[in-house]
């Protein structure tokens, strides 16, 4: 076996990704009756269509539920989370074109 006489030291081109603080999830709601449900998406028409049906089904099964439609980027910003959390009890996050 030939000796490995050449050494090439190279630097890592990747950007470091900062580990985010971990938060324990809130307890789940026991049922959805009377609850405020957030439906979050990236606002594409396909998701709007899906949520239209989902909201209809929710209100049929839980007539006292209220729905808040939320849109934004793929990631929910801290600011949006702070703004929305007092307005909802639970939420669904979905992305789809």
């Amino acid at each position, binding site marked *: 076996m030939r000796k490995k006489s*050449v050494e*090439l*030291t190279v630097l890592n*081109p990747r950007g470091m990704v900062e580990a985010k603080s971990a938060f324990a999830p809130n*307890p*789940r709601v026991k049922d959805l009756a009377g609850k405020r449900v957030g439906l979050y998406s990236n606002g594409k028409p396909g998701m709007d*269509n*899906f949520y239209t*049906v989902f909201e209809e089904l929710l209100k049929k099964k839980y007539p006292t539920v209220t729905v808040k439609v939320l849109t934004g980027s793929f990631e929910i910003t801290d600011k949006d989370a702070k703004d929305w959390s007092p307005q909802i009890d639970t939420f669904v996050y979905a992305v789809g074109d």
Partner: protein
Amino acid sequence: MPAVRSREISSAEFYKLRGEVKTVRPLAEGIFDALTSALTTPLTPQESSLEQDKKGGDDTPAEITVKAESYRVALEDFNQLYLDNRWGDGLPLIPPTPDAVKWMLSGTSRNPYEVLGTINPKHGIATIEKIAINAVMAGAKPEYLPVIIAAMEALADETFDDLHFLASAGSFNLLVVVSGPIAEEIGMEAGIGFMGHGWRANNTIGRAIRLATLNIGQTWPGINDMALTGRISPHTFITFSENTELSPWQPYHASRGFKADDSCVTVSPTHGESQLNHFYGGMIGTWTALGVLDRMVEDIVRTDRRGLFMWGTKGIGKYPGSGGGALNHLIVLFPELAAEFKKMGYDQPKLQDEIYQRTTIPYDEMNHAERKAIQTAMELGVIPADRKAVFQAALNPGAKVPVLISPENLHLFVAGGVPGCAFSFNYYRVPPYNQTSLITRLITGATLTKAGTTGVKSVPYGA
């Protein structure tokens, strides 16, 4: 994130059926119980545990040593390793040795550890050093580095939407235009073939930006870069410089509030499906400035009128009109054409106004849906407050309605040789996932050129 409960619909089902409420209904019905159960079933101890979420960050080493029996084999092993790690672009890379990176950093006075911001989709941290590593890999020279840094600063700007063009299924691209004296000083080609191959500065500046987005943002085709067809000019984006020598006008960046003798980089995504709209010129046929202007106007009216209905929707993201409420047009004029326009009395602002006026549509010829879209756009804020009066006045019999929000949505660059061609790209005025779709950034910190030296201070690497 194990604490997040996910329930999935396959993309094969969703993409086929999502187009209408009635077609997507069975999918929503099919997953309804699973979703409501996920919302209401108590968390398990494992889900409640924080320990599982403490992993994160990037544990790849800062440097790697490749050992081989010859330099040829070491180079091949290095290239394969980087590609296997998804740190390459498919073309051979220059090894970013510490010595090569130090050499690259000699082109800037900026602190190698300075953080410019983060790049989507993984929010990788863009430092001067990481950009220099990618610039070495791309084959760039140190005098190009300040240009590459300025472009990356623009992409990392907290208002700029780099997520959409880097990740969207629509195969969007990036336009990078260098303007001002640094372009000529570092040897950027602005004449015949300026968007083509053979120009080390143009090609490696573009490639360094491409590699830096790929590696710092951590994207990969089919994983989180969902560009369905990939991109034209995939290794370099679309990178060129204005032809300052032959342009009769001030450089583009002067129209953006910079001094004419500054050196700047402008970045903007471009649409994937309509890469380039050709207005002819040069050797392709006989041309007149008015004839080219007519073709521009026809193209803008056709394109923008087709998208008028989108003005009346809320937009894709959270900003009114995002991803569809009117376009920016990035128009490249060849020097002879710009000279003809100058003879006709047009500088850039006057030509912007002329095109803006010529692309208006008679109110009386608009259909009900188009009028309603404009009206709704005013109510939703898609038309910004400072342009509302213009559109209110236009929505009347006998008036003419703009298809552009403002003349400033026409960006006029002068590039190419003699003869040349005129063409344009376009993109959303407000992008889908952030506030800004176009940024012009001052080039700073250059140490090897006369231009781009603003903000020079000496910061040694490794100190």
